[in-house]
């Protein structure tokens, strides 16, 4: 694990890791700590999720407020901050979209804007989902809540409903395929990452593509959620 050197607030000695080796208090983490460094990783497109989770749980064991209840008030405040950073850091790195956005943000020195245009590569899927959602909405709007079980059973076997659920299942599968395809490409770009150097045009091109992929993931996420929501609304 890569060491983070910080000055211990309690005894002033310079320490690596999360605990002060001299006086054993929890060390502070600066507000805008690098999440990759927090988990002892190099900033890059891909992470080993299992290893990341193991590191996260290990650090949480030491740095969670529950395991520092006996500490002095100052340490407890610090622990709350550190623990919140760990939780956010883990959530950011474990999720490919969030991780890519974070990496792009670091490379460009500012947080990338939220995706607000449908990426070309998933345009077709987007419109198919969109059209189906409108049909389903119209169907749901015309539907009344069933007041008896037999009415619910009739609604359950409704021809339109069965057709919609089939269509949703199909689109969900295609969305999953797209997610997998993005993950594959991220893995390829990760392999190419070391061959490019920071500040070069090649690296910039790579980062640009990662930014596009983050947008694709953002849209795929939205599609996945609306499909799931409509599926739920239809089923209940």
């Amino acid at each position: 694990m890569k060491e983070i050197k910080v000055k211990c607030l309690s005894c002033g000695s310079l320490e690596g890791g999360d605990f002060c080796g001299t006086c054993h208090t929890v060390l502070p983490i600066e507000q805008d700590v690098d999440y990759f460094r927090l988990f002892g990783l190099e900033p890059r497109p891909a992470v080993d999720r299992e290893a990341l989770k193991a590191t996260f749980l290990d650090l949480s064991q030491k740095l969670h407020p529950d395991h520092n209840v006996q500490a002095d008030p100052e340490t407890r405040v610090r622990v709350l901050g550190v623990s919140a950073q760990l939780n956010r850091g883990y959530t950011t790195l474990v999720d490919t979209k969030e991780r890519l956005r974070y990496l792009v943000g670091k490379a460009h020195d500012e947080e990338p804007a939220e995706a607000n245009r449908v990426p070309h590569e998933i345009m077709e899927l987007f419109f198919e989902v969109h059209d189906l959602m409108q049909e389903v909405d119209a169907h749901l709007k015309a539907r009344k809540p069933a007041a008896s079980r037999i009415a619910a059973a009739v609604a359950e076997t409704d021809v339109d409903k069965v057709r919609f659920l089939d269509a949703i299942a199909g689109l969900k599968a295609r969305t999953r395929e797209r997610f997998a395809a993005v993950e594959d490409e991220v893995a390829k770009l990760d392999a190419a990452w070391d061959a490019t150097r920071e500040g070069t045009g090649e690296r910039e091109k790579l980062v640009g593509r990662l930014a596009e992929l983050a947008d694709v993931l953002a849209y795929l996420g939205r599609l996945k959620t609306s499909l799931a929501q409509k599926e739920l609304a239809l089923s209940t």
Partner: protein
Amino acid sequence: MSKIIGIDLGTTNSVVAVMDLGVPSVIPDAEGRRLTPSVVGLADPDAPLVGVAAQRQAAVHATDTVASVKRFMGRRGDEIEGEAMARTYTVIGKGDAAVKVVAGGRTWAPEEVAAKVLEKLKADAERYLEEPVSRAVITVPAYFNDAQRAATKRAGELAGFTVERIINEPTAACLAYGMDRMKQGVVAVYDLGGGTFDISIVEIRGNVFKVLSTTGNTRLGGDDFDRSVMDWLLMKAPDIDVSADLEAQTRLKEAAEAAKCALSTQEAFEVAIPFLSGGKSLNAVLTRATFESLIASRVDETRAACLQALHDASLEPEAIEAVILVGGSTRIPLVRRVVAQVFGKEPDTSVNPDEAVALGAGVQAGILAGGVSDTLLLDVTPLSLGIETFGGLMNVIIPRNTTIPTKAGELFTTAVDGQKAVNIHVLQGEREMAGDNWTLGRFSLEGIEAQPAGIPRIGVQFTIDADGILHVLARDTATGKEKVVRMKAAVDISDADVEHMVQQAVAHARADVQKRQLVEAQLSADEMLRATAKALERYGDRLEATERQRIDRAWKAVKEAIDGDDLNGLKEAKQALDEATQRLADIMFAEAVKDRAAAKPHE
């Protein structure tokens, strides 16, 4: 330092536990009872009775005996309108005002009543441990909002506790379950108690318990099932009117509860209440099939919540290795069938559904006391938190299912030139419009430098501590002016307002409920007739001739009753049709599941 105890403050029953030599155990009361009914007798406000003692005098002091007060914790008037819970005491509070309970000639905040239960548990623990106890971990339904959590914490403080932690009930149950049963895997905790329902998906890895998602309904539980049985019993005895007889209502509720519990193991239960009201007795036989038809729609509501929780955790049902059942209502066979259907596997019933939550709270108490140092619980916030922005929209700052503790912030700006103050409206909930969500508080940040609209930068930071309670900080980045706010429980109201509300509550009780009920029953009967006809058309050939005849007869009876004004007659006819069509409905549900399985692409 004194021991920390774990308390499950339940809607119906409460349980207290403590860590003893690394194992959590339930503390019994002086009579050896492990469950304390969450019932408080306030006929004499200076000498409150709690638990079984309060239950014993409930029929005599119906209006002064408070049960299920948890349903009103941290709630405002407009949230409890239409609360169909069976209760004999009065609650008041309208609109934004906090709900209060009227008993023993005065008004009580719900947390004051809950504190009486906690005081009794505290005394039981002190007698058992033979030492003073002043520290506690108290559980709440995972889907409780910030105000309900704060009210629970306050109840603990009123009972003389330092509340070391508020933890979520399903998470606590999972802790008790996982301690010795599972080393690695994902489990679902299905918690259906007396008044609340929660579903949580938890990943267990060694000694770390990480909650992946949670959702629920804070107004769904055994109380609602009792209410359904009570309505059915009254329908069976149309000559008995208990609307003005509180003692009879209490006895009816007890009978309904007994029938419900018995039907978990028996196929039929004979309800007999001699001289219930006006010298008349009530006798009826409730079968399990009828009981299930009475509660089926409420139980079905939990299905949607389970699917939502799975989606939020990005998991398919197959990924769940065990489904743990917690809460007394999970003894109902229909509930178990629904759970098995949703998750595609039989639920795990190895934990005691009444005690698991308290035992888990005991484990968490042990963690905080430093005795169980290798176990760790990583919980989430159940509802999204944010503030109101332009156009009355809710801007989410911390999305639901975020692991806590957490901190997050966003920059906002002014909407008008020269604006010197901003109002910050803190919200909790999942709806897009601010007005549809729960208001946690409003405050204003003043002294902003007058500048054109869009220029000032106001940072709003939310921190959720390990109790799941929110702290808000707002800062004008130019002047450095800040305001730190801790969200308080629902607003207090003055005594004069209370008086006014008591009168209004009484006046409103005289509305013509009867007429509205008839219209509603006619509408739903009409729907049933159409649905049954359609169902017979499609699947009628799957039925035996006798079944078919029974449905036809019941269908005709409803058809004849629908235009009359005999509410009870119509209800009976509908009930008969509902029962007659159960198997037909089952066939259709099974057919729908089959269709869906066939449509699912294989991976």
